[in-house]
């Protein structure tokens, strides 16, 4: 049987960020990893940074909306969802 081991996403993220601190792909996944660790506020902070670097980053506004929804921040959730509908490819 062929055994394929994809490198740990955290390691890939850290490697990419070491090469380029503004790598939006790596930052987006870092935000998701922080949320998975239970740290939604830090995930949102990183996500906001992604959206400053690339306001059209695919999926970022909708991800932001879902995180605000988790936090019970309904106005921010609705605002992010509107942005997603306007901007998303």
């Amino acid at each position, binding site marked *: 049987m062929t055994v394929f081991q994809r490198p740990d996403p955290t390691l890939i993220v850290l490697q990419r960020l070491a090469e380029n601190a503004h790598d*939006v792909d790596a930052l987006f996944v870092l935000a998701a990893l922080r949320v998975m660790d239970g740290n939604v506020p830090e995930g949102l902070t990183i996500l906001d940074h992604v959206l400053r670097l690339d306001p059209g980053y695919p999926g970022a506004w*909708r991800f932001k909306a879902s995180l605000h929804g988790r936090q019970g921040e309904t106005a921010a959730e609705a605002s992010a969802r509107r942005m997603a509908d306007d901007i998303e490819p």
Partner: protein
Amino acid sequence: MSAPAQSMKMKICMAGQASVGKTSLIRRYVLDEYEDRYIATLGTKITKKKVTVPDPRGGQPVAVDIIFWDIMGTSTIRELLKEAYYHGAMGIFAVADLTRKETLRALDDWARSIRSVAGNIPTYGVVNKQDLEPDREISADDVDAFFGKRGWPWSYTSAKTGIGVEESFHRLVESVLASRDVVRQSASDGGPPRPS
């Protein structure tokens, strides 16, 4: 083919485990290129391609702006990001790797995740890396049974040689176009099909 009378945007989500060749298949289809080096996709890559295909209803050609969402093949964060990635998806291009048996079974979870957001959208399966036939780990019977049981059309592809790639994407596009008619028809009969 005469000039298209209608146009539409079509979001297609790539599905499948890491390193099955999702990015390479898009690259082959859009650029007709192949890169042997494996670079893991992080986050999402958007690729667009315009095609003109016959309307399945037999009418005028349709100009389709395909928007491919090439999503990282990491299942651990799939559920967290599923709304972000799959909202508005109209078709699933599900990719397994001929040399890794588990990649075929994994397609169920990918399709389930996408359909939980996008509904019961058309799915087209491919078994990629046909050029690695000597290393085959999935029997032809298993492939047939897997896709047949789910009712997904499928084919073999090789992003490396290009075999089957264009036809597979076109078949998914045609399925999506045909499904629009099903939705319209169902709507007039009392509502669109529900997610399974």
